[in-house]
């Protein structure tokens, strides 16, 4: 076997390898590892499963394993909560697999011009959706974006408390806690929960006002909230934060912004949110990404941890190019003195996100927002009419809490029964939000037809009988 060349390695044919050895003046590559002391070398040879060097075998192997998954295209799924099933336009899939975008790392500003422009168009179109003028290149996820934004707010204000709603997504909150450092660390930021109104699922504004103090670096609120509820008066939340010298940081799902107010409209200082809904497959959670945006004010811009590109002139009059801006404040520029850190992120998805936003345009976002709103509310009405089933809050977008407490069944049991009917029920909230008892978070998007929702209702009717 070793006498054959490997398709991934041009110099792997023995005669070609020997040609290189001769040129270097060694009889074997082993001689080139003289820097490594003998007692550092592996004590036992590496043992791995036998190679599948031919694509024929490898393809079959991968198919045989992955074929055991049951996916959300075959099964009707109502799972959401930080990763959502939306339609991915075919053009987005083509752009995502273009080798010029997929394979490389960095070029020069000229040789990377097309990709830099795509990145600029990611930021620009997101800026239009958010009504904010400064947008960084994406970070790993919404939770990471929120974590960075809260650290920005803490640096901006010199304060160390952030007020958050008591109903948060557990994954995202766990990430934010990590970013806010445990108590005892010098940069610890305390996340203090503000109660939500049990009738609406939105922030209790009196409680928010009472919780605000001169220690508050920021108020962090999500619109729509982690459990779907839409704040009715975001301007008031921002005003309350500002009245106490705190930054207003808003988490927003960009897919909602055809119908919901953009953070810039009601004066938010920093907006964060997910990028996966904008044309990226769920990928078992591997499609997530996050954005950070703000008004284009130097005060905020100087705190970004991200990389970003700026539109710039070139040496040719009238020609446009792009250059990194504020590189020196990144960890690449200033190591531990930079703002947090940056590195590889989800930049390929930024290109895909740009294509997605271009495809939708203003009318697409308006239609999409309306469709999701109406279908999710239709689902809520139908489910809420089932015996023993209630929908928690009336004002929501895309996701809503279905309360099964009065059915006497657990969400786990209900979801097991639904799975037998080829349906993935909503995410179980019973351990992440014990105060809600046996409740589930249902997600309805543009991919769910009325027929799908009716099928869910019929299945649940059977299951709960």
């Amino acid at each position, binding site marked *: 076997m070793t006498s054959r060349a490997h398709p991934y390695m041009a*110099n792997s044919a023995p005669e070609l*390898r020997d040609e290189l050895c001769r*040129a270097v003046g*060694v009889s074997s590559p082993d001689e080139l*590892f003289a*820097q*490594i002391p003998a007692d*550092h*070398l592996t004590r036992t040879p*590496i043992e*791995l*499963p036998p190679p599948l*060097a031919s694509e024929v075998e490898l393809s079959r192997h991968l198919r045989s*394993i*992955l*074929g055991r998954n049951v*996916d959300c*295209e075959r099964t009707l799924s109502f799972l959401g909560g*930080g*990763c959502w099933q939306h339609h991915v336009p075919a*053009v987005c899939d083509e752009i995502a697999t273009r080798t010029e975008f*997929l394979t*490389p*790392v960095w070029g*020069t500003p000229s*040789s990377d*011009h*097309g*990709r830099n422009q*795509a990145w600029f168009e990611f930021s620009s179109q997101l800026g239009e959706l958010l*009504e904010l003028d400064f947008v960084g290149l994406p970070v*790993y996820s919404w*939770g990471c974006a929120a974590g960075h934004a809260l650290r920005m707010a803490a640096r901006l204000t010199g304060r160390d408390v952030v007020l958050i709603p008591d109903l948060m997504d557990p994954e995202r909150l766990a990430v934010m806690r990590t970013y806010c*450092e445990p108590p005892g660390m*010098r940069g610890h930021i305390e996340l203090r929960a503000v109660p939500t109104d049990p009738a609406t699922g939105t922030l209790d504004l009196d409680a928010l006002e009472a919780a605000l103090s001169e220690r508050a670096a920021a108020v962090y609120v999500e619109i729509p909230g982690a459990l779907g509820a839409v704040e*009715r008066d975001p301007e008031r939340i921002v005003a309350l934060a500002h009245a106490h010298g705190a930054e207003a940081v808003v988490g927003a799902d960009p897919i909602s912004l*055809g119908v919901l*107010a*953009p953070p810039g409209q009601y004066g938010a200082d920093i907006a964060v949110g997910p990028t996966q809904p904008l044309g990226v497959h769920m*990928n*078992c959670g591997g499609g997530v990404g996050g954005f950070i945006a703000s008004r284009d004010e130097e005060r905020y*811009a100087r705190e970004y941890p991200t990389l970003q590109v700026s*539109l710039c002139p070139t*040496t040719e009059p009238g*020609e446009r190019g792009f250059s990194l801006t504020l590189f020196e404040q990144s*960890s690449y520029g200033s*190591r*531990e003195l930079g703002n947090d*850190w940056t590195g*590889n*992120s989800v930049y*390929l998805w930024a290109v895909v996100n740009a294509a997605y936003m271009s495809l939708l345009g*203003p*009318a697409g976002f308006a239609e*999409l927002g309306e469709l999701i*709103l109406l279908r999710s*509310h239709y689902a809520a*009405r*139908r489910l809420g009419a089932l015996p023993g089933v209630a929908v928690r809050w009336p*004002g929501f977008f895309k996701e809503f809490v279905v309360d099964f407490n009065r059915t006497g069944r657990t969400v786990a049991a209900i979801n097991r029964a639904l799975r037998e009917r080829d349906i993935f029920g909503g995410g179980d909230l019973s351990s992440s939000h014990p105060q809600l008892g046996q409740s589930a978070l249902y997600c309805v998007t543009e991919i769910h037809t009325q027929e799908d929702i009716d099928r869910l209702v019929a299945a649940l009717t059977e299951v709960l009988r």
Partner: protein
Amino acid sequence: MSERTLRRYHAAVWDEPIVLELGREGRRGMLLPAPEAEVRATAGSVEALIPQGARRQRPPELPQLSEFEVQRHYLHLSQETLGMMGISLFGTCTMKYNPRLNELVTARPWLAELHPGQDEETLQGVLEIVHSLSEILCELSGMSQFVFQPGGGADAAYTQACITRAYHEHRGELAQRDEIITTIQAHPCNAATAAAAGFKVVTLPLEEDGYPSVAALEAAVSERTAALMVNNPDDMGIYNPNIRRWVEIVHAAGGLAFYDHANFNGVMSRLRARELGFDACMFMLHKTFGAPKGGGGPAVGAYGCSEELVPFLPRPLVRRDGDRYTIEHEGPLSIGRVREFWGNVPQVVKAYSWARALGAEGIRRAADLSVLANNYMEERLLAIRGVSKSFPELTAPRLEMTRYSLAGMTEETGVTVLDVQNRMVDYGIDAFWLSHEPWIVPEPFTPEAGELWSKEDIDYWIDVLAAVVQEAYERPEVVRSAPHNQAIHKVDGSGADDPERWATTWRAYQRKQNLAVA
């Protein structure tokens, strides 16, 4: 320089407008279904469902394009990106072939349309791959468990910093242990993530052997030491032979030792981080393990650790129970999450596929070829006028990359390494890597051939460098004003840090242009 004739090349030039300048009122790129009549009748209207203050007042000023126009625009942008269509010896990033099979397999619904919250019974295939790759990486490193949640190498370094916090807190020593030690040749992310996790950073400088001395480390460690974060070999291709002693010193002081395996390619199958004493290490799947880089992610910093640190790992972890795979969602001592969900799962599958395609013998071969190719380059590169090697007095062969300097050329011609980089792309050669900050070597460049590139490609790359250096001596203005054959000319970034001129969005650009005109 070679007598060989260089190929003609010119990048695609489209003068592609910003997408927001394109389109016409009323044009559509994507339609959505109309809500069903019963849906509409039951649900009501947007106005009824969303109060005025929470509704959007103005439509977003997005472009209005047909579907084809969007497709063509982004294809034009892809063509205006050299994107490894030439020869990319981008050092520290280990440019590899990204097998198309892996793209096709992971694009299918059986992976692309999985939700991480599905019941584990429905995820057995992907769980098997996650578990199997962890086992493969454990065999390569000697570690006990890997997680793939970190979204890149820097995120894995951050994971290490967070685990360092949790480990010392568990032992009641966190208040005392507030320093993380690294070296000036470690990637900036090690220092930056340590600081972002709340630690003070101690950075050791290089000494005459090309790495910090044992004495310097001994002087740096104390009861305040929380961890060491270090790469080896470094980006100059220099291997610190005292690394085992280093780990012992840090352990004796009570700290953890983290091996940033960014430069694993040359030492694959020859070293196991755990056998050197390290408590944890990190592999970049988008680098060493054949997954694509995406121009900066989605990436995976696979983080592996010893049995002792497993309780602190972020969750979820995939466990094997006979022939079933299960998900461990929480752990009492776990740091929780560094990112939502289990990581960039498609990249995990691609890395698994790559490792299976090579096997142990293939991985060894890849390491050998990458070190061989790097050493092959050296003689030819040093024959080019104005090129010198970092720490030239160190004669032992370098590993999979070597840092060189063009300072000699710059002194004699005024042409800089950035100019050379800008000129090489005129020949269809992808940009080379210079050096992370700070530049210890003046006018640095760092080629890394890896196992992918043929001898002919490597020779051609050197031919182009030689031709450009010759131009620098003979016609420096051509190099200084480069590029000439690219999608655009040389970018003037002088305003990019000026608040009056920077523009990360079209909105900002238009506003500032209008102000400038007014």
